[in-house]
């Protein structure tokens, strides 16, 4: 019963977001696409907060970094300023290092191992 209820609430939230994004507000097409990516980051943050184990949180942080890179590319296309792609490159590099360091820490080894 609880599982069905959660599934239904999730479906209702996604449908409400899609109706709000494509039928109610009136903005440019790129802003609608950016809104979809922001919804994706909210879903990833849900997994970061409520993840049952530490490995779930590490996976979610890795995915969060990659989604943010795509979001920064779209923001650069929307504003016309190309320095957002510099931020995207730096974020991708740092996200890779963070993922490797968290994986090593999760496995129980030290930095000089």
């Amino acid at each position: 019963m609880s599982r069905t209820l959660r599934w239904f609430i999730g479906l209702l939230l996604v449908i409400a977001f899609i109706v709000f994004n494509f039928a109610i507000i009136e903005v440019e097409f790129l802003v609608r696409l950016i809104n979809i990516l922001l919804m994706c980051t909210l879903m990833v943050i849900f997994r970061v907060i409520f993840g049952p184990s530490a490995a779930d949180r590490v996976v979610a942080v890795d995915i969060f970094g990659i989604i943010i890179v795509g979001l920064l590319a779209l923001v650069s296309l929307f504003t016309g300023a190309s320095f957002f792609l510099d931020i995207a490159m730096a974020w991708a590099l740092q996200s890779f290092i963070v993922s490797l360091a968290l994986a090593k820490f999760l496995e129980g080894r030290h930095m000089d191992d």
Partner: protein
Amino acid sequence: MIREIFGYGFIVFGIVFDFFGALGLVRLPDVYNRLQAATKCVTFGSAGILFGVFILEGFASGGLKSLICMVFILLTSPVAAHAISRAAYRSGVKPAKETVVDLYADELKGSEKDENAKA
């Protein structure tokens, strides 16, 4: 005109992949299932978005930066996913109940036996 059609086509394609990757991260029952869905879909989706930006901008500064970023993401994301899944298995996270086969457990037991036999 045709350049804008292809560029926005790649961007919409990538955003659909991103959305389904995030949905799989929320929906699936297990660390390994979540990692598989999320990493593959989101890497391919963000690479699609960056390639669409490269097509729209051309060989200017923005387009070349997005191309470099796409190549870097395609190279490094599988390495990070492999490291995270290996660390999750070794830190003792159990697979879901519906799992049919678990070959890595047998391999780990075999390697421990070999180490004990050598010692």
